[in-house]
């Protein structure tokens, strides 16, 4: 087998195992209260870490990224549909870029 195939296969294995093992193994396991809270807070901690500061470098210009992020934030605050929030973020960036470039 070609070694590039081998590389992709190994990358696939080390990516798949952390995705699969907890879902298959921990499902019937009842965690103590602290760990239950920990696991329940994971999504919010992860979302926040994914958003900040990464979004600032997502458009090549921190100010236009801020405009898009702010548009998304306002739409999300008023509980618009997720698709509209995504489109709002894109339009926020595009409007800013067309005004100031």
């Amino acid at each position: 087998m070609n070694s590039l195939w081998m590389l992709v296969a190994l990358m696939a294995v080390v990516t798949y195992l952390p995705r699969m093992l907890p879902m298959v193994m921990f499902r019937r396991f009842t965690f103590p209260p602290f760990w239950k809270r920990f696991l329940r807070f994971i999504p919010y901690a992860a979302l926040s870490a994914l958003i900040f500061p990464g979004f600032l470098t997502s458009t090549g210009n921190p100010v236009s990224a801020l405009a898009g992020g702010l548009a998304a934030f306002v739409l999300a605050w008023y509980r618009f549909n997720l698709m509209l929030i995504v489109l709002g973020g894109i339009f926020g960036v595009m409007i800013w870029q067309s005004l100031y470039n």
Partner: protein
Amino acid sequence: MKIHDETETLVGDGVKRENHMLTFLHGVRTGIPVAVGYVPIAIAFGAMAKSAGIPDYVSVMMSLMVYAGASQFVGVNLLSVGAAYWEIVVTTFVLNLRHFLMSASLSQRIPKGASRIGLALVSFGLTDETFSLASVRQEPQLRPAFLAGLNLIAFAAWNAGTWIGVFLSASLPATIQAGMGIALYAMFIGLLVPSLKKSRAIVAISLLAAGMHAVLRWVPPFSGLSAGLDILIVTVAAAAAGALLFPKEEEPS
């Protein structure tokens, strides 16, 4: 436990199969924002790999078998600068270890009767984005058929985008892709912000995570860490701090 989605109205022995199908389709619909966000990024991946001189089949197979955005970009980059294969594999592992936490978090909301093989298949599609969408849903239980629909449309979009990037990207205007860079971040914001209004614990955890991530990213002794490791450390620390500081935070119903 009660499950609050529209497919539940069909519960009954005779309609069990349609019920699974509707749950699956509900997952597919829910995943549309992820799919829309994935296409331009996957196009960028395919185009970048092509311009770095990576053989087409390697890019296509990475999206099919590895299916992890950040580590595919990093992997192709390391390949093009001639890094050792073991370095690429270790980097990929570290970058994707955060999915261990996400998988553990989701595992607590899978119905008891779910099949192991089904879960082993569904878990292949776990990404930052599909996890985020699934985990902020209101219903306490997440059915495997729902997760399968959600993960499948995201996977299909990622692979379609990769093909476009590898085989057609020369004919696409670059300006369209630039504006799309914000799409997945806007989705993350759309998923997090409504939860901020519900709980002070979530506000505190979010601020803590964002602050810690900024420190790890920008302050010199830490700024050499890989992005995946950053996110893993910050997520563990902020969620653990939340679990310590907010012991009264009640269980979801």
